[in-house]
């Protein structure tokens, strides 16, 4: 196990090393590249003066608020449409017309309506997060074991109890996957909005570094954003295994 991990690290580490040696030997001066050592130094100083932490807070705040907002809407709609086929058919054309709009294309409208700042970014992230959660929740609800639905009918559970006690817990492992997917999208969209126009967060910071011709700082931000994305995904994966380890086991068993 350990040996495998060391082997997997061998390639990226040696590439970085070769790049470092090359950059030093040619006395690299570039607007787009910097030796790894310079990137580390830039990252360290950005961390030390708190700039990168503030930017991270802004980006994650927007991403999570959008994820929460859009995810909630997607979850509610997904459960509704999954349970009520007639409503689903009624909404199908509307949803399929709105869904393909790239969320970034809403930037001009959102900017006029909400101005710069968190609200506009949260709205766009939210829009992007509705769809994966809606589509996957709808599918998960439709595939709830029919026998469990019969049990809920035989027990005459109220519609609210049926959703709360049967549908949501049965679909929860797959709903969590939907949120994991949406979390990744939320981060991408948040950074994209910041790079495009919004003057907050990591996206704006990486643009500022680029425009200030600070290649080392720009690449430090790039590395940091990658690290955040990696951490987010790993954290959610761990949470999924913790929360649904038993449920997943049951599924394989049945």
């Amino acid at each position, binding site marked *: 196990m350990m040996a495998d991990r060391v082997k997997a690290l061998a390639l990226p580490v040696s590439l970085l090393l070769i790049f470092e040696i090359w950059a030093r030997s040619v006395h690299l001066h570039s607007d787009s590249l910097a030796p790894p050592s310079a990137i580390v130094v830039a990252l360290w100083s950005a961390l030390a003066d708190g700039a990168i932490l503030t930017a991270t807070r802004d980006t994650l705040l927007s991403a999570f608020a959008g994820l929460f907002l859009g995810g909630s809407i997607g979850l509610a709609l997904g459960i509704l449409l999954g349970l009520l086929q007639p409503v689903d058919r009624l909404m199908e054309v509307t949803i399929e017309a709105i869904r393909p709009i790239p969320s970034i294309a809403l930037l001009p409208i959102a900017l006029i309506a909400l101005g710069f700042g968190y609200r506009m970014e949260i709205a766009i992230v939210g829009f992007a997060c509705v769809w994966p959660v809606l589509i996957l929740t709808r599918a998960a609800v439709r595939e709830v074991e029919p*026998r469990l639905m019969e*049990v809920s009918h035989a*027990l*005459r559970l109220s519609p609210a109890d049926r959703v709360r006690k*049967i549908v949501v817990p049965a679909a929860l492992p797959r709903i969590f996957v939907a949120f994991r997917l949406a979390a990744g999208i939320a981060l991408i969209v948040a950074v994209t909005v910041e790079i495009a126009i919004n003057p907050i967060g990591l996206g704006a910071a990486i643009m500022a570094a680029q425009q200030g011709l600070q290649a080392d700082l720009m690449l430090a931000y790039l590395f940091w954003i990658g690290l955040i994305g990696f951490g987010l995904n790993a954290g959610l994966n761990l949470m999924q295994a913790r929360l649904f380890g038993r*449920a997943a086991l*049951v599924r394989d068993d049945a």
Partner: protein
Amino acid sequence: MALSAVAPKQAAARPQSAQIAFSNVTLILGGKPIVEDLSLAVKPGEFLCVVGASGCGKTTALRLAAALYQPTSGLVQFDGQAMTAPRRDIAIVFQDYGKALLPWRTAAGNVSLALEATGIPAAQRAGRIDALLKKVGLPNHAGKYPAEMSGGMQQRLQIARCLAQDPKALLMDEPFGALDAMTRQGLQDEVLSLVAASSTTVIFVTHDLEEAIYLGDRVIGLLPNPGRIGIELPIDLPRPRDQLTTRENPEFLRLRRELFDFIKASEA
């Protein structure tokens, strides 16, 4: 003259004394009649077993009794009332216990679901759950999840959940079909003693002819395509029944032969 005047009155009075009554029930699904013109009366406290070749509509008949299906024509009644929706005093035990239990709830939690549905206050649930689990022989498994239990234990748990509904009628759909012979015999006797203690009406669907005779007060055999009653056998074997002596009883063997011949003829 006098006789013909009395006869229709008796026919009209019969469904009223019955707890579960099918009157000329036909169910058509996807253009195909699954059950046709089925009339049937089950008395309160009666143990009725339903057998038949596969695809004869025995499970469908059970679902009609539970109002999980509505008949295309005809009427299903319970205590004289038309069955338009499922009732909590009719409990249904499904064959596939693994799918009918909530995998994210413990044994106690699964029993609790029925109590929650019935509106039993939370404070009273724990005591009731303990009593029910004890009744079905799972007193030490309250905290286990269904996936941690054997098939027989899972089916006991489903029965406990059904008993939590305090049912007047128990509808059982091949409940022991997937269990091994020893577990099955044990559960047969437990169901008999549970039912005898509470005088619950039972409709028990099975493909095991001996099981039907062993358990039932009456056995009906359905003919396939479309499902209809082909044979009706009252079972007058003494109770309480015993796995050895009852099954060795000459009457048991005669009934077994008769039912076996019927199934063979219906499949031909």
